[in-house]
């Protein structure tokens, strides 16, 4: 697979008569883009708003942030398989991307209606809370969208995410025929055989267990969110958006997956520091010990069969999902694959271990600090001048977890001081926060 990625840096976004890109400025024909979104009869309302770095703006509820990418040559479409998109294998040919911006999916639609799982994330474009995330450096084009309220929850999720992807496609068209100012070739060329072979084991939450549905909305692989055995992905497939869609945390958005610094550094140092073999994607939250161990065994086997001598492991979730992740690490180590685990930690009150099931084989851990905002001591985000999205946010206190959305909470004004969402969780190591004794 060989992918030529053409980057168009976006330095400003304005609304105007036609959607076009010129010398860094992206002009967006608001009416045309909204009209394209509203062609889907499942959409009840849609508006576009801009949030720029440094502004006193808060966006809520943030379901996803997506970087516009569009396929120019080669099979398939970017973000394949999502919301009915083509499922042809991607990663070959040419792709154009609009860098420095995000399309933000803002909607009141919740992930599913089985309970326990709520949309939590809001983003600030300035101030101490905003500083914690990479999005405040992006020019964010926000699609504030609501679906027909009579639809079932899964269809609502599909409709609003499809709407966001429609905006992505509309913007992508603006650079389809242009020459990109920056180009980079991505391929796993043959390298010095003495270089160590490494694989990236990328553990991704499946919503199947929590929602009771194999098709609930979440981060997806070619549109599939259900529990599946480990899946080999060429890194070019990730660059073309084959692994995409949000999880529940601010660092698990389509944008962070496509711009994962760990993946990019593994890729760019291929041939220099190692022989990068690719990505093994492991779905998590299987609900019996046998299934968890089976996935761990098969992940390690796949890595070994690919020839891996080393592996970096990340995950995006919490709770019992840790078990298949740490047991994959154990299984790899037992097959002689040296692993490094990049992860956050839990509360350590009273000297408790900060991992659910510490295993001695997980002996090389890089910590991105506590995953709960309350343990990190993150204060309330300060008041802002402008809100994009809903005017109130439900918070529920009374437990040190932070807050969950839910009908039995208190509604606070979005524009006022607001407690952070309960999880921070820097899954891919964007930041330098960690823990020590």
């Amino acid at each position, binding site marked *: 697979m060989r992918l030529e990625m053409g980057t168009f840096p976006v330095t400003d976004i304005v609304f105007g008569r036609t959607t076009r890109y010129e010398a860094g400025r992206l002009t967006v024909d608001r009416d045309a883009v909204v009209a394209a979104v509203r062609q889907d009869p499942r959409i009840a309302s849609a508006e576009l708003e801009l949030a720029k770095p440094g502004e006193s703006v808060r966006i809520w509820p943030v379901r996803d942030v997506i970087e516009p990418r569009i396929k120019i040559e080669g099979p398939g479409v970017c973000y394949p398989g999502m919301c009915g998109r083509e499922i042809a294998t991607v990663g070959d040919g040419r792709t154009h991307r609009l860098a420095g911006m995000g399309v933000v999916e803002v909607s009141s639609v919740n992930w599913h209606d089985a309970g326990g799982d709520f949309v939590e994330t809001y983003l600030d474009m300035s101030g101490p809370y905003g500083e914690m995330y990479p999005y405040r450096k992006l020019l964010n084009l926000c699609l504030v969208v609501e679906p027909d309220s009579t639809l079932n929850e899964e269809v609502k999720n599909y409709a609003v995410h499809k709407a966001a992807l429609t905006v992505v496609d509309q913007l992508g068209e603006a650079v389809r025929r242009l020459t990109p100012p920056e180009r980079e070739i991505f391929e796993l060329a043959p390298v010095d055989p003495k270089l160590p072979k490494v694989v990236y084991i990328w553990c991704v939450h499946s919503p199947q*267990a929590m929602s009771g549905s194999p098709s609930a909305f979440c981060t997806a692989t070619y549109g599939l969110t259900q529990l599946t055995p480990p899946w080999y992905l060429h890194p070019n497939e990730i660059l073309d958006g084959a692994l995409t869609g949000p999880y529940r945390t601010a660092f698990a958005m389509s944008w962070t997956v496509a711009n994962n610094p760990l993946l990019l550094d593994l890729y760019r140092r291929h041939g220099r520091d190692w022989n990068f073999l690719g990505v093994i994607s492991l779905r998590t939250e299987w*609900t*019996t*010990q046998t299934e*968890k*161990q089976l996935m761990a065994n098969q992940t390690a086997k796949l890595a070994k069969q690919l020839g891996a001598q080393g592996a970096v492991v990340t995950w995006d979730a919490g709770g*019992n999902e840790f*078990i298949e992740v740490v*047991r994959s690490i154990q299984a790899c180590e037992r097959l002689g694959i040296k692993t490094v685990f990049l992860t956050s930690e839990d509360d350590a009150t009273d000297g408790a271990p900060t991992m*659910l*099931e510490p*295993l001695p084989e997980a002996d090389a851990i890089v910590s991105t600090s506590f995953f709960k905002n309350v343990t990190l001591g993150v204060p309330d985000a300060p008041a802002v001048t402008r809100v994009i999205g809903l005017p109130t946010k439900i918070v529920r206190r009374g437990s040190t977890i932070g807050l969950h959305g839910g009908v039995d909470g208190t509604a606070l004004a979005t524009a006022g001081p607001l407690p952070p969402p309960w999880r921070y969780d820097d899954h891919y190591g964007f930041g330098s926060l960690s823990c020590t004794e």
Partner: protein
Amino acid sequence: MISAIYNFALTTGANRVIRGARIEHVCGDPTLSPEKDYAFGMRIVTSALRTLTVAVPGPTLFDPMEAAHAS
């Protein structure tokens, strides 16, 4: 302790651990007929009770599906 994710109970120090069916339905299986579901749940519960009558040296796993635990 009855749990479907029993290994982690063992590695964190629980001494009498009985394998449950699944996280969402620990003592039984709703995909079975009501009679079989109940019999399955009873098998899990009786083997759990039996472990209370047995000395164990440390964290020990008991599988209700093993013959020794047949009621």
